[in-house]
């Protein structure tokens, strides 16, 4: 019972301070963590993770890659495509 009352009070506090009552965890960019692999056109395995089955580049809102890294990614993928390491279209 005591626990319950405490919880309710905490929730009220949150309401007062305009905080959201739930914790939404923001997903961080998988390429910005320390020790993350370098984005490079030679690292085909890594680039394939950020492409659809048809060979398109996945949007960052799905992969949660940061804007800076997404720019690097798209450049690397385009280079790899030019060298026929990756397909332009996968039929």
């Amino acid at each position, binding site marked *: 019972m005591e626990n319950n009352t405490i919880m309710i009070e905490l929730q009220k506090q949150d309401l007062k301070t305009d905080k959201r009552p739930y914790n939404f965890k923001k997903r961080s960019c998988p390429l910005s963590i320390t020790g993350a692999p370098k984005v490079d056109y*030679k690292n085909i395995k890594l680039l394939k993770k950020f492409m659809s089955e048809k060979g398109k580049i996945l949007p960052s809102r799905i992969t949660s890659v940061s804007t800076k890294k997404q720019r690097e990614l798209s450049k690397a993928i385009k*280079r790899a*495509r*030019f*060298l*026929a390491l990756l*397909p332009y279209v996968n039929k």
Partner: protein
Amino acid sequence: MSLYELVFIARQEISPVRAKELAKKVIDFITTKGGKIKKEEYWGFKSLAYQIKKNRKGHYVFFILDASGVAIHELGSQIKLTQDIIRHLFIKIKEKDFDKKPTKMIEENEDGK
């Protein structure tokens, strides 16, 4: 002088020995122009993701060169005239990005792929 990466793809009909001869030509050209070869790799006879000039496979050769822009430009026009090379790509890289370790492509080859 700055660092450049060069990848070129050679025709499928030629032998790996001939591909290495082409690589040697590039090295000779750069050294005569006063440049240096920082790294040289033969990625192997790989299948292409799509056809280039009716080639389904190609010999991939990779370099890191330290040369002047003029020399790189001349090398580019030389490569264009070489019919055994079906595609090439120059990329300028920064000094701090230079890595002495072999690239990912070599590691994959050693895994037996």
